[in-house]
Structures are given as structure tokens and as C-alpha cells.
């Protein structure tokens, strides 16, 4: 239950720091849902691939 509260608050903070919402995802998967687990991991991987590598400064100077 704590996680369900932490992640939305964390996401609000990450948005202020310029981090895309899609980089963090919270989902709930039961141990019996192997297919669903695999699908979510694949979706997430593909999403991150499309966003590209994360760099702190967006390629600017003076880090």
C-alpha cells in the first residue's frame, strides 16, 4: 500500500525534474500471471527504447 502512495508522489517530483512520465510505471502482477508479466516488461522496454537514452543534462554544457 505504501508503494501505491509513493509512486504517484515520486512521479510528481520527477515531472518537476523534467523526467518523462513514461519512464516510471507501477503495475500489479500476480505470480500466476506469467504472460501478463512478460507483456508488461516488453511494453516497458519498448517504451524506454523509444524515449532513448537518459542523460541528465539533455546534452547541454556545464552539466
Amino acid at each position, binding site marked *: 500500500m505504501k508503494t501505491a502512495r509513493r509512486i504517484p508522489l515520486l512521479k510528481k517530483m520527477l515531472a518537476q*525534474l523534467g523526467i518523462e512520465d513514461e519512464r516510471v510505471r507501477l503495475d500489479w502482477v500476480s505470480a500466476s500471471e506469467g504472460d501478463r508479466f512478460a507483456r508488461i516488461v516488453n511494453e516497458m522496454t519498448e517504451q524506454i527504447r523509444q524515449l532513448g537514452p537518459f542523460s541528465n543534462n539533455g546534452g*547541454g554544457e556545464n552539466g
Partner: protein
Amino acid sequence: MAKPKLALYWAASCGGCDVAVLDTNEKILDIANLADIVFWPIAVDFKYHHVRAMEDKSIDLCLFNGAIRSTEQEEIARLLRDKSKVMVAFGACACFGGIPALANFANREEIFQTVYHELPSNSNDSGTTPLTKTEVAEGELELPELFDTVLTLEQVVPVEYFVPGCPPPVDLILKLVDLFASGQLPAVGSVIASDKTLCDECERIKEEKKITKLYRPHEIIPDPNKCLLEQGIICCGPATRGGCGLRCIEANMPCRGCFGPPPGVTDQGAKLVSAIASIYQGDNEDDIKRMVEEMVDPAGTFYRFGLADSMMKRKRLHKR
């Protein structure tokens, strides 16, 4: 025997750290007896060229306050590092970026836009902004260049010790001086403060941490005896190093985090997200939504003094 040489400098800071040194009152005379002050822009009339003329490592102790956000500050940090045996990051700005590092939520262009063009109190019809080089009849004038990103001292030069605080309390300043004078300085990298969290040192009555509403300090008059966090006031005590003497807590104000993260905590802000979200009572979407709304400015609150030193260091820069 010659007295040890002491230098003090301010970079991106408010001057409060220098005042804190003067707040040692009559003990300042002990410090002056103990050491020769060879450089201290706020109080003593030595110039940069005097420091440049010194031999390397000829300053025994340098107390450096302020963050680094301009070419001048970077240059003087490097100069003082070369000239000093022991470099101390003095105060929250030198240690973690401090209040100036809140500028890391913007970049240089945005700051110039706000400060020189948009502020309603401005009278700048010609749209003048500072340039690093300006031609005038007498020759070329130079100004330091502002960085996009405010840095901690340690991100620029190696640092031996850290004295946190906004400003550092007098007892820690005197502790540092005593340790230095008696040759008992701790291991390099030590933080001259407590190894506990502020909560560990706080003497307010603590019961069960369960809150159902977050208050900003101006929205509530807190009970002076009870844990502020339990009253719903955001207090950074759970993820802030102690040793400050509980100055804010005793004034009935919550901790704002100026002593930085305690030992074992990498990211003060992330830790505070975890702490606040843990004690907020609610298990449905409405409760969670309400909590997120009540936490008006999480990044600015949880990284008030520590943004430059955090894992992210700044809001991401997106440049053309």
C-alpha cells in the same frame, strides 16, 4: 613558530555563513589568536592577486562557503584549492548547492529572461543583459560567465571536510576550529556534525506517525510539544542529518533539510518522498490523489538545500 594561515571565501552564497563565523562572538578573538587570516573578502582587505602570489599549500585551512555557479567562483575555488592544505565546504551551499541550487530548476537563458526582461519591477526598455565581454572607449570589460547549473564545491575541487548548515551553527564552527587547533581532524571526507538524523535528536513527543492531511507552515499553528510531522507539517527531519542544535524545531518551525542527507542516504529528496508517502493514511485513489495535491512542490521542498548534490543534480536541460 608562525601561526597557521586561515582563508575564508564566499562564492554563490548570501553572506550568512560569514556572519556565522562572526557569531562566535568573543571566540573570534581566539580564532584570530590561533591563526593568521590571510584572505576573507567580507572582512579583510586582501585581493585575489595576494592569494595568487602565495606558495602552493601555504594556507593551512580554507573555509569555503557558497556554491559554484560562475567562472569566477570556479577559478577562485581552484586557486584556493591549490593554495590550501585543508579545504572545508562550509555551509549548505558549498556542501549541497543550498538555496542557490534551486536555480537548477531553470537554466541560464530562463534566469536571464526572468531577471532582465520579465520581472515587473524591471526598467530595461533597451533589453540590456550582462555580457561576458563589452567594448568601451577605455578597452574591454569582462564579467564572469554564469553557468546553467549550480555546482557543489566538491563537484569542482577535492574537499577534505564538510560543515553543513544554513548557516553552520556556532558550536560546530568552534568544534572544527578546536579539532584543527589540536591536530585531531577526523578522516578526510568527514562531515563535522552528528551521525544521527534530526528525528533521532528531536525531543518532541512522538507517537504513531499517521497523517491524513498535509499542511504548509502558514496554514496551521503547530503544537510546540508534538512531532511536527505527526501534525501533518512537512518536516525534513527523517532524512536530514542532525547536529544542528534543533534551531528550527525549537522555534516551532519544521526542518527544511539544510544539514543534508544523513549517513547511508544517497538522495535526500527520494528518501523524503518515501517517508511522507508512507505515513499518509489512505488506500484508495481519492486519498492518494489528495495527498499528491496537498504536497504542493515536492521537488522544491525535498531538495530545498540539496538539489545540486542529488542524484538528478538539476532539472534536465533541453537545449536546441
